[in-house]
């Protein structure tokens, strides 16, 4: 019974699931977190803090809508400010969830099965946070639907040659596909929750969400096809989304933006920060909810290694940017290089190099990859670093572009900070609710990893040809 699952045979790695689980024990354990576990003080405190931040966020948004974007520090020459920095940062964080759920699904990395659910939830909440910023930034956010092509009395259409319109399509598609991917994955687990509870109301809620799912193998067959297709579709989608986000910059001519390395460099950076967020969430969740046997050290270590690898792709991006500034011979690009290293915002660039390139090198050591406390702080460091990267790209380039007379400085106001920190509160509040309301680990997908799920009867024995 206590035989390891096939994936780690041959190598001495931590197992994907600790041995000893049965089909029923998975239901008990994962469903039990939602259905049986009492709400504890830690959850209430955490949720309370996030809720307070969320109220602060709402206040800031109301003030923003009332007064306009002038409450922010944006002004010429920096028209993009925190809103775009945060937009790019948040949407990048979302990318790890899709990478785990789609790309690792296609690559048959079975370890994904225990972390994909909450990583997808993370994606969804992160994209929701990201999506708010361009809308806040519109100035007249209630007219956001002008971005979509719909027949209207003004007889106008969006400009499909603009990367900003591409962005609208990329981000809304990404949000929609992430949502259905997540929901489809949840349907069988909703059915498990429905069958597991005796409470009529809870049964009704999960039953409605499960839509009458009855585990028929015909349904499973179609379900598996649909799930795999979604994985295959989400894979190019996730790569395209950050590519399109990078086009917002690279199609422009501002020094530091107009480079061809942006798409791959943005995608790598997105996955880098996304895995950092996965670790920041997974480390406390597995500890406080006692699911260290489902989210094992294997997951933690693999995520750390993905971080290290993508960190080096990002490092390559920095190196090549610097090289092209010099090799390209463009005086404005050369000035940008000088400005990053010696200008008024030089400290952000040095801090960025330190947090994104220097600190994560500790992940080469297995001891540190296995030390969840240190790993947690390294991940936080990467999140800070990736935020700084977007700050350097957006702010440093815009403050000093071509003509000295248009040089300026950018000072974020308290409302910039309130909205940025507010989205952190929104994101965390959503995660707190998610942990209490939905099965945080996919029950049905984990079952396929158990040794009991192995099919031993060979196909040809009894096959009947019609």
């Amino acid at each position, binding site marked *: 019974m206590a035989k390891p699952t096939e994936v780690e045979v041959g190598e001495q790695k931590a197992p994907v699931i600790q041995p000893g689980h049965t*089909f*029923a024990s998975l*239901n008990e354990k994962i469903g039990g977190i939602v259905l049986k576990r009492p709400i504890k003080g830690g959850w209430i405190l955490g949720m309370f803090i996030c809720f307070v931040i969320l109220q602060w966020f709402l206040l800031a948004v109301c003030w923003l809508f009332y007064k306009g974007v002038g409450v922010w520090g944006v002004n010429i020459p920096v028209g993009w400010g925190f809103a775009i920095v945060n937009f790019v940062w948040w949407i990048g964080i979302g990318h790890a969830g899709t990478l785990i759920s789609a790309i690792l699904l296609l690559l048959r990395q079975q370890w994904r099965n225990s972390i994909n659910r909450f990583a997808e939830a993370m994606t969804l909440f992160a994209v929701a946070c990201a999506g708010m910023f361009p809308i806040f930034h519109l100035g007249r956010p209630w007219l956001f639907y002008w971005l979509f092509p719909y027949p209207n009395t003004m007889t*106008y*259409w969006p*400009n*499909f*040659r603009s990367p900003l319109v*591409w962005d609208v*399509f*990329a981000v809304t*598609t990404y949000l*929609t*596909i992430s949502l*259905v*991917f997540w929901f*489809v994955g949840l349907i069988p687990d909703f*059915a*498990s929750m*429905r*069958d*597991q509870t005796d409470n009529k109301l809870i049964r009704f809620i999960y039953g409605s969400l499960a*839509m*009458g*799912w*009855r*585990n*028929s*193998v*015909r*349904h*499973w*067959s*179609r*379900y*598996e*096809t*649909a799930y795999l*297709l*979604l994985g295959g*579709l*989400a894979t*190019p*989608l996730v790569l*395209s989304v950050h590519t399109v986000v990078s*086009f917002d910059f690279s199609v422009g001519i501002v020094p530091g933006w107009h480079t061809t390395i942006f798409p791959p460099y943005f995608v790598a950076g997105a996955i880098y920060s996304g895995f950092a967020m996965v670790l920041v969430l997974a480390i406390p969740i597995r500890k406080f909810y006692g699911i260290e046997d489902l989210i094992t050290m294997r997951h933690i270590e693999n995520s750390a290694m993905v971080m290290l690898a993508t960190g080096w792709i990002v490092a390559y991006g920095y190196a090549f940017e610097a090289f092209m500034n010099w090799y390209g011979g463009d005086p404005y690009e050369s000035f940008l290089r000088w400005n990053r290293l010696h200008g008024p915002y030089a400290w952000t660039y040095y801090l960025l190099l330190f947090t994104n390139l220097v600190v994560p090198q500790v992940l080469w050591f297995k001891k540190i990859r296995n030390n969840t406390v240190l790993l947690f702080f390294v991940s936080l460091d990467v999140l800070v670093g990736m935020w700084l990267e977007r700050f350097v790209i957006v702010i440093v380039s815009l403050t000093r572009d071509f003509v000295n007379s248009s040089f300026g400085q950018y000072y974020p106001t308290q409302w910039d900070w309130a909205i940025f920190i507010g989205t952190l509160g929104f994101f965390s509040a959503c995660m707190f609710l998610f942990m209490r309301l939905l099965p945080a680990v996919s029950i*049905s*997908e984990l*079952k*396929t990893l158990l040794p*009991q*799920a192995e*099919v*031993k*009867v060979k*196909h040809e024995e*009894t*096959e*009947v040809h*019609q």
Partner: protein
Amino acid sequence: MKDTGIYGLLAEFENVNDAITAARSTYAAGYRKIDAYSPFPVEELSEAIGFHKNGVALICLIGGLLGCTGAFILQWWINTISYPINIGGRPFNSWPSFIIVTFEMTILFSGLSAVFGMLALNGLPMPYHPVFNVPRFEFASKDRFFLIIFSTDKNYDPARTRQFLERLNPISVAEVPA
């Protein structure tokens, strides 16, 4: 069809291999209106009841093609017919810049068609189904495997079909009221 007021006979199995063997025997015995239930996807089990192909991929393809052509035609029509603007002397039909929206809409439409196609083919949402009348059926989402022979099957006979199912090594056999 014999109207017996019974939806079918439901046999419960302890493990996946028993269920597959039983499903194959049932299919071999000539039963065709059958279905199986398992707490996780088992490809062999759907094969065993004679369910080999599903239409989800085709629906997804059609959706994707519609999204792709629709998005491109929309952009082409807007930029050449409805609202042509000269931007730096570029052609009105500057198709390379339409690729991205075309791509995103292909993904969106194919993804949504795959999901809604899957739900539609599965007949979901379905608030009521007779099989839920069997109390033990709640284990289908936990750790048990079920095989049902519907009473509409031409070989269905209340007594003989029950005997047949009982020979397949089930934990229990129950009648499903219609």
